[in-house]
């Protein structure tokens, strides 16, 4: 049987492209295990000493914890304010629903570097000096639209007659929400949370403006280290960040299914 597209050609091109996609990640991991003092190709052997060095660094562990708690906080905040907003928009009864939706998705359109700078300027002018809270607000702004989009997409797919049936049978609105709506949108919300977590965990352009030397998220710490340290410990730190991302991809695939999570 003939395939519907020129299969062999596409397959060959795809394999070349897959190498292109994974090459920068593979190179980083390869250099993280080289025993030489400089992060230079090719690796000259195998060692885990750079990982040991990185994990023994107090500042690295602190930055990792900053990034992880920031990402968890931003995810929770955008979930708590994003889910009801997505439901309100989905009901489509508010005047200006479209405008509200545009506003809630606007952090995806505005260059993030500008969002961060505007926030930095605003917070300085308002005397908001708590770096931790400032970072949390900044990160929640960029995770919110991703959360909104995944929750909205799940809401569009659920069977609303179930909710109607529950309320007709006398269930109060909150019971309907937690017992009928939530179980149906749970996979979408989970995918949204995992994505929001990684958006925040990996963020550079917001933290660039809002972080300081005491509270330094991992990407900022890594960037500082890159201009002062030239041994493979940089590669080891990067590899640990790659590992975090891979864990999230595996979780997405196991819990939700990668295709479903990505809307493909």
């Amino acid at each position, binding site marked *: 049987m003939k395939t519907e597209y020129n299969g062999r050609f596409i397959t060959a091109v795809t394999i070349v492209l897959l190498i292109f996609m994974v090459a920068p990640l593979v190179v980083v991991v390869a250099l993280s295990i080289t025993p030489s003092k400089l992060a230079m190709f090719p690796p000259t052997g195998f060692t885990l000493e750079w990982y040991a060095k990185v994990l023994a660094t107090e500042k690295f562990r602190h930055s990792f914890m900053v990034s992880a708690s920031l990402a968890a906080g931003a995810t929770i905040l955008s979930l708590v304010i994003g889910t009801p907003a997505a439901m309100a928009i989905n009901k489509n009864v508010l005047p200006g629903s479209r405008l509200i939706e545009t506003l809630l998705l*606007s952090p995806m359109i505005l260059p993030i570097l500008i969002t961060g700078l505007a926030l930095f300027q*605003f917070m300085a002018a308002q005397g908001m000096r708590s770096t931790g809270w400032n970072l949390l607000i900044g990160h929640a702004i960029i995770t919110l639209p991703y959360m909104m989009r995944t929750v909205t997409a799940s809401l569009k797919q659920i069977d609303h007659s179930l909710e109607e049936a529950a309320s007709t049978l006398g269930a109060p609105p909150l019971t309907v929400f937690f017992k009928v709506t939530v179980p149906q949108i749970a996979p979408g919300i989970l995918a949204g949370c995992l994505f929001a977590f990684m958006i925040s965990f990996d963020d550079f352009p917001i933290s660039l403006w809002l972080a300081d030397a005491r509270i330094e998220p991992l990407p900022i710490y890594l960037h500082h280290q890159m201009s002062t340290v030239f041994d493979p410990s940089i590669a080891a730190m990067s590899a640990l960040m790659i590992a975090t991302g891979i864990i999230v991809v595996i979780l997405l695939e196991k819990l939700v299914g990668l295709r479903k999570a990505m809307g493909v």
Partner: protein
Amino acid sequence: MMSATTEIAPGYWRPPSRLAAPAAMAFPAVGFLVVFLVIPALTLLSYSVLVQSPTGEIGLPLTLNNFQRLLGSPTYRGILFNTVFIAGCSTVFAILLAYPLAMTVAYGRPLLSRLTMVAVVAPLVVSVIVRSYGWQLLLGNGPAGVVNFVLSSVGLPPFVKILNSKWAVVVASVHVYLPLLVLPLAASLGRIPPNLIEAARMLGAPSWRAFFGITLPLSYPGLLAGATVVFTLTAGSFITPQMLGGTDGMVLGVLLEQQVNTVYDWPMSAAIATLMVAIALTVHFITHRVMNARPTR
């Protein structure tokens, strides 16, 4: 888009009780973004038409002087050109590379399709800074650059010398943003009824004609959405050009960071920010118009 259960057009007056709950539900998110995004962004952009006194205070009179300084200087015009050029090239290359990947995701054999999906999504969850570092290692101009090392080990001259130039930024930007084009494109391709292509092939169209006559036009929604994201994110990026571009690959984002952190020139920074926002909004506006002009189904 209206849901099927809504009989009354949005905006029509309803008893307050039916509006109160949705309004209360939308309020926290709307309030949060108005306070921490809309007001700060408008404040920042307004600085672009104001004056900074020697003591650092920003105020009246209104002026277009900042934009004149920005667009009047050949250096800054060059940086603006670089920004648009790099974003344009990245978008074109990303489109060319995205089709085979998206077609494999949509139509490929299960194993390869799954593998492609993982390889496309995995870089997406790795920080841009790590990916840019990977490209620094790959594109190193000396013999220790990984690409050059591989070239010389198969007997070719190590001719890749693009680190610290526009082209390094283009290569890395394509890599960084390609997934955001592949995913909507694959979703679009997946919605094309396969019997359309089968019909074309059965009637004797060669596969390239079936592609250009059917697959390509029907995949425009995903293509446009993804290409817009690639262009605007590349044009607004900072870390990739900062790590890979050098002076040849200088873009507005890098210039902006310098103006704020070393020159402390807020009106000038605001003018650059306004220009970056204008580029993003223009591209989104054009895409929106093109999408709405096309019959969707």
